[in-house]
């Protein structure tokens, strides 16, 4: 809980490489634990952020942009945690639509995120993507 209703912001910048996703997961664990979330909710947030970072890192690899960063920005207000995952990993090409094939792990990851947090929004940036997720406590 923060005094004065001002949101506190915690930013973490990780290299767009798989071995750093765990660092983002740990950091968000610390951030979310400062709020009135239960164990299970904290773990849900951690999983959601991990999935979003993994997706960003995978796009960086596909687009040969492993030298870029992923920014994980958490805004903490009294009862709401907003996490933005902002990458510079290039454009995300929509996978070819085929009615009968199961979705790839990436779209399952995106679906999983929607199940774990209260709101998700994905927007294209110039040369990257921003995923914004919101989780309300108690």
């Amino acid at each position, binding site marked *: 809980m923060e005094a004065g209703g001002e949101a506190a912001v915690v930013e973490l910048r990780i290299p767009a490489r798989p071995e750093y996703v765990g660092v983002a997961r*740990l950091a968000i664990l610390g951030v979310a*634990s400062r*709020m009135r*979330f*239960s164990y*299970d909710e904290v773990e849900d947030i951690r999983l959601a952020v991990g999935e979003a970072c993994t997706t960003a890192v995978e796009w960086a690899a596909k687009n040969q942009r492993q030298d870029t960063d992923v920014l994980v920005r958490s805004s903490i207000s009294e009862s709401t945690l907003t996490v933005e995952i902002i990458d510079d990993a290039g454009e995300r090409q929509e996978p070819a639509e085929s009615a009968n094939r199961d979705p790839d792990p990436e779209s399952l990851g995106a679906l999983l995120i929607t*199940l774990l947090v209260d709101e998700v929004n994905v927007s294209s940036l110039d040369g990257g993507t921003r995923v914004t997720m919101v989780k309300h406590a108690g």
Partner: protein
Amino acid sequence: MTTHHKGGVADWAADDTETLFRKYAETRNPAIRERLVIMHQNLVRFLAGKFANRGEPLEDLIQVGTIGLINAVDRFDPGRETKFSTYATPTIVGEIRRHFRDKAWSLKVPRRLQELNLAANNAAEQLSQRLGHSPTVQEIGQAIGATEEETLEAIELGNAYDTVSLDSKLAYESESAPLTLAEFVGEVDISLQNIETYGDLKHAMDCLEPREKAIIYYRFFKDMSQTEVARRLNISQMHVSRLQQKALRKLKELLSE
């Protein structure tokens, strides 16, 4: 789609998922259902794997996830423009998350952290009962006289070690061999051909209190002793025995309806 004559496996064994779902919707043939469930085990494994760092054996998660999968197979309407995996994922994830809500933490952590983790675990269970919801880290920390950081460390390192133990043999040593759906269903002596009865049982199980359900699950689906279950749930063996009797009575009543 043409309607197939009832008859051999050969009629549909080579069909793709979409065709199978259409046939299952028409016929409710339990053999087709079984096939659909088996075909989508990888989806359950994939999703269960995402939750594998929370201190529960992966095989347990696959097992509860499979319950979600079976429900999704039953409810899926192949006429709608949704892929099955998209439809089934929320159901599977729902069962897995419920499993975490329903049971206490497992404690496969080094001794140094074990005490604090255990204390946090006990406090979490007591607080859950008292508060009616899963407690926060702060609430647990207060209950065990530890700072937030200490509590978090116990939880966090517990998690970290569990991730390692899942990758190594430890998680499997304590469990029986990894379970397949067939073994899972076979253990309660209901064959896959007779899977409708299993559906009834599942429904009856849903009517139990979370702890009763956990006891039935561990005792009869996982073949654990009352003492082992007692340790898992952090209650006495007598208590397990009492809850088990009560749960079995309930199940009998529900299934004879």
